[in-house]
């Protein structure tokens, strides 16, 4: 049971990462790229643009509360949200 829980946690972290929105953005980008490519439209640029946008959005989400003077879960002096393993 404990082993299954550890494996499940690992797989969830593996597929989702720190921010599920980034993973969702990757899936959407590749899906759109696949659809456009099947339609004969050059879409090699699309996942790159998608990745830059989801990264910028994720960073914006982390830093936005600090502009109102509130700590965020990910910033150094705030309580640890406890999400995800130590990656990177």
């Amino acid at each position, binding site marked *: 049971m404990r082993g299954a829980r550890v494996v499940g946690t690992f797989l969830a972290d593996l597929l989702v*990462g720190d921010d599920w929105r980034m993973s969702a953005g990757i899936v959407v980008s590749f899906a759109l790229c696949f659809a456009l490519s*099947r339609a004969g439209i050059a879409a090699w640029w699309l*996942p790159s643009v998608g990745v830059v946008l989801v990264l910028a959005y994720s960073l914006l989400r982390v830093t936005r509360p600090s502009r109102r003077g509130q700590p965020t879960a990910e910033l150094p002096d705030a309580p640890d949200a406890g999400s995800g393993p130590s990656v990177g």
Partner: protein
Amino acid sequence: MTGANVVLVLAVFVACCVEAVEATTVVLAVGLTRGWRAPLLGTAAGLGLLAVAVVALGPALTAIPIGALRLVVGGLLLVFGLTWLRKAILRASGLKALHDEDALFAEERQRAAIGSGPPNGLDAYAFTICFKSVLLEGLEVVFIVLTFGSNQNSIPLAAAGAVAAVLLVTAVAVVVRGPLSRVPENSMKFAVGVLLISFGLFWGTEGAGAQWPGSDVSLLAIIPIMALISIGMVMWLRRTSGLPRRRPRTDARATVTA
């Protein structure tokens, strides 16, 4: 050796050098930032599975849907790469501590609570990244050998060219490992994030059915462009953040968590 055979060996050598450099870059980057045990085990596991597949399937290996494999590996590399790069950007911009004892303690406590291994146990992330990258690139090397070799009716010669390429790239990686290990930790993680995202974009996009202009050569543009965009994000965060800035620490041994 005939002229055609020389051309065959050279063509396979160059093509396999490209594939080997891609896999070795990922292994080198992960090993330098997360320790060598798991990346080397992942590499060995990838090569082992590849060897079993080659022995069991032989030329039938070319039936494996490489596009789907590229899409899966590329997508996972992107998830890993974005996670690493996001944290590295936050640290480089001063918005996240480089060394956070409280976060380290919380992580240890959480790890103990769920019964996972200690930090010096097998690093499953590093293992997975290296395993998949080596398996994917290894499969591409095998495809190159089988397709080039069977066209010339000389698979052993093509295999010799591939082995030479892999040995050369591995030797170069061993030589550059030392100098790279002296790069500050967060800078290295920043670079690893950029590399993982670049390779993830390259493989994933091709797996999704699109073709990069220039094929593998496009990586020479993707990597610097991603690096420039990431540096731009650091500058943007430094300029717009309302938080007091931390002085970035240059201690390369600092343990970075969370």
